[in-house]
């Protein structure tokens, strides 16, 4: 018995050692089979997985939370289920920063889909806002659609930043009513 204990301890160290070294992130092994990427109906500026849907006029993600836009910007969104029958609500969550109001006094935002423009809205104060418009079912027929936004004015490149600056977007998307 006196020789057995050290032998067991030796065996244990030989066996556990490789086991400990083998510890690895097994989640990297293929344990799931994923679908091909799908467009989102709502895109958050901070979400890198939907970065491809911010197709034009958006600057890089800042503070892991938001993106500056230029004077014109566009996103591609998946059309939500049922929108072809009931239509959808377009929601753009954004903020107008103090420097923009100071310089431009007022900015007017307008959205359009496939050439159909929606009622513009003007902002004269700094703060967080939601631009919300009902989109008729007739414009919601495909699997996805491109939504264009335009501001009547923006801070030109070189004025306070080397980029053209419009508003700061946190999210944009469709919701069914």
């Amino acid at each position: 018995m006196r020789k057995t204990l050290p032998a067991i301890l030796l065996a244990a160290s030989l066996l556990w050692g490789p086991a400990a070294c083998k510890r690895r992130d097994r989640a990297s092994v293929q344990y799931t089979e994923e679908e091909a990427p799908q467009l989102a109906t709502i895109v958050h500026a901070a979400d890198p997985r939907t970065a491809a849907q911010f197709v034009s006029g958006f600057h890089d993600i800042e503070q892991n939370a938001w993106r500056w836009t230029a004077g014109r910007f566009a996103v591609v969104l998946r059309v939500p289920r049922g929108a072809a029958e009931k239509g959808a609500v377009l929601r753009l969550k954004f903020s107008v920063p103090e420097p923009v109001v100071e310089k431009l006094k007022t900015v007017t935002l307008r959205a359009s889909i496939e050439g159909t423009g929606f009622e513009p809205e003007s902002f004269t104060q700094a703060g967080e806002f939601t631009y919300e418009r009902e989109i008729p079912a007739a414009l919601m027929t495909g699997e996805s659609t491109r939504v264009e936004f335009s501001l009547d004015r923006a801070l030109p490149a070189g004025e306070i930043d080397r980029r053209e600056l419009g508003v700061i977007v946190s999210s944009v998307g469709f919701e069914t009513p």
Partner: protein
Amino acid sequence: MKRAARAAYWTAPSLVCLAVYWYGIQAWFQADDFAWLGLSAEVRDWSSFLDAMFSPRAQGTVRPWSERAFFMGFYALFGLDALPFRITVFLTQFANLVLVASIAARLTASRAAGFWAAVFWGTNACLAHVLTWSSAYNQALCAFFLLLAFHFLLRFIETGRRRYEAAQWVVFLLGFGAQELNVVYPALAGGYTLLAARKHFRRTLPLAAVSLIYVVAHMLVAPPGGTGLYAMHFDLALLRTLATYWSWTVTVPWLLTPYGLPTGWVVAAVVVLSAALVGFAVRHAVRGDRLPAFFLLWYLAALAPLLPLRDHLTEYYPYVAAIGPAMLGGMAMAAAWRRRAAWKAAAVLLAAVYLVIAAPGARAASKWLHDRSRRVERLVRGLQRAHELHPDRTILLHNVDDALFWTGVLDRPYRLFGARVFLTPGTEQKIAPNPEFGDPREFVLPAEVTARALDRDAVVVYDASARPLRNITRAYTAAFDYRVADAPRRIDASSPLADYLFGPTWYSAEANSRWMPEKGTLRIAGPTAPSQQLVVRGLCAAENLAAGPVELRVTAAGVPLKPVRIDSAGTFEMAFPLPEAAAGKEAIEIGLEVSRAYTPPGDGRRLGLALGSIEVR
């Protein structure tokens, strides 16, 4: 004995055991394992560590070495890598086999008897769960403490040295941290000394006093007379249960062989092997040798505490007890070898009958458990990966079958890596009810909440029947029947997907619940029949009860229900009859109000009550 022969003597039984139970070392986690692995999450400070280590858990058990420290320690070191757990189980078993060989050789004065005892026990089919399922490690460690204590008793009897007696006491006392079955040690020690070393019998009596104190203390913590599977029956069923376990011990559990041997043949083997063992014991008893009787006593003593559990026949319950017949078989084998050829032939034939039935049965059982654990691994690893890919989304599991639910979902393994997981609506209909263990409905996301979550891309759906786990979100979303109401009949308060059902005063969903201050409102579907009740499950903190009981007032559809008093901290479940006015309504508002709330230091929130779930049933 030459060195090589000596090494072979001690290691061969372990190698045979390893060969038979090879699947056991490759097994992954399953079922209760996840509850024990999750214990680490409860440890925040020294006090919660002591609580996790020593507070009574399932059926009032306190097994700090074999469950708490084993799982928490190894999980901290190795995470979800099961191999170190399995190696530990096998090393403990190898130590047990060495101890069995050593003890049997000492008792019988025959090395051959020791060798065969270890081989017979190491190939016994009742070892399958212990050597393949980490949660049954308590059995292996319990056997280790019992065998080691008994080894020291023998050494004390042989040498008269007090240090061996002291070592026996230390090991015996430590054994209570492995498994409650340790209480039988005084019966083993007392039984042996009474039958074979009577002058030492009185020295074993204090051991019995300790076991008695333990039994009383355990009964105070977990009073006997449980219901359902754990109900104890002290009647003739004891003999029936004993006969069942004996037949399993000398052949294979449930008398099922992997190669389809007719049950009648297995029963015949039970009769023949039993007759041989008992006949051998009687023959020796007549001659004044009571050692074989002690081996049978070992079997009875180690099984006795489990015999009243008539409705909970468990394959590994005879694990420790089987050491007795194994030593008896080893002794008989060695005795036959000293006699004429006919006796030798008979002994070989009987050993062959046992091994031909037990070893394949053991291997098949181990493989079955191993395969089940690997299926659970694919699910859990898949969920881990899905959570990595979709950290902000709740995971919905589709096509979970009965076996996978009870072994891979019930103990919520996904909490180990912070994923939120539910089953798709309707899954509960594919799972056989088993109220003793849990309610599958608690794991299902209601169709009403699912519809809303799918609409908002808040969930990702995986097919659990696919290998590997397959993301079917798009197909599931397209096929889902959205013609559902807004409010469900059951709400899991810990799910952020249910946020829209809660009023403005509620705090954010947490891992297991959602707190409200003094008041909170929520929407739920109205009852479909007047007999249905509102079932509220939640938690009241001890801090909130420091100034006395709190009253919980509930309103349903504006009608006040009978208030209830909460006077003990911890989880609660209460049922309230619902007013007639609520019947048939698509949604009703429920108001909850507690008479007192408190503000935990460093938190800043007013906490009245934590709601776990609420249901109209």
